[in-house]
């Protein structure tokens, strides 16, 4: 799915990274407010959907080669996060949709989930 379509489907607002948007196409999405789990379970190049807004959300995304972040529930990312995202030209998108709503719309439009690996003690 093209990131441009994601933005349309979610009626989302682009906060930065406009220049990178047309070059980004994603296959999978991962939605979580728990970055510990994003680091453990998100596959490479996924679209991250979250309601957390602190700077570590950007760092998590950067470590995992996540190309763009969607903030749900109209949550605005913190200023220091936006500054880092602007520097690296990562698209930051905000939608008023809830997490469930945003995921449902993207799933219905062909975005796939990440596979959670089997593991012991999980």
């Amino acid at each position, binding site marked *: 799915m093209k990131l441009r379509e994601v933005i349309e489907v979610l009626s989302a607002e682009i906060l930065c990274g406009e220049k990178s948007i047309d070059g980004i196409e994603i296959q999978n999405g991962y939605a979580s*407010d*728990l*970055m*510990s*789990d*994003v*680091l*453990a379970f998100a596959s*490479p190049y996924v679209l991250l959907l*979250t309601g*957390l807004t*602190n*700077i*570590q*959300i950007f*760092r*998590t995304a*950067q*470590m*995992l*080669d996540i190309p763009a972040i969607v903030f749900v529930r109209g949550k605005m990312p913190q200023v*220091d996060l936006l500054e880092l995202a602007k520097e690296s030209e990562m698209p930051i998108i905000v939608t008023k949709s809830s997490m469930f709503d945003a995921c449902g719309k993207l799933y219905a439009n062909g975005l796939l989930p990440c596979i959670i690996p089997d*593991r012991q*003690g*999980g």
Partner: protein
Amino acid sequence: MSAEIYEEEYSIDGKEFVAIGVASTKIKAALKMLGIPSDLIRRASVIAYEAEMNVVIHGGGGIMKLEIHPDFIEIIARDEGPGIPDISKAMEEGFSTATDKIREMGFGAGMGLPNIKRNSDNMEIKSEVGKGTEVHAVIGIKRE
């Protein structure tokens, strides 16, 4: 790449929660610059970031070291914090001693050490209560 070892050490401030990830970002950039394959860079970045997080939130600061050998990458994280009394417990998924502040930021779910292990080909933890903790994580580089 020549057979020379690339080595760099990064100091980690224990008080600055906002700065968590700065050293890992540098590690990621160094690996990229040295032409390491992107899947290995991602694994190394996750290891570095999880380890850096631990050094700040549990160790009160310390150092991280990146070593690139001809056939493996090693990431070392060291702190002089309280140490881990029961390492096997700390390796259990879901076990965490993180504070509410860390949890509010979206971390501290007890996934860090298991995640470091999952992304490593070999991982070792040395820890002594009252003295500190040292984590070694190794990723093999397969050459075609």
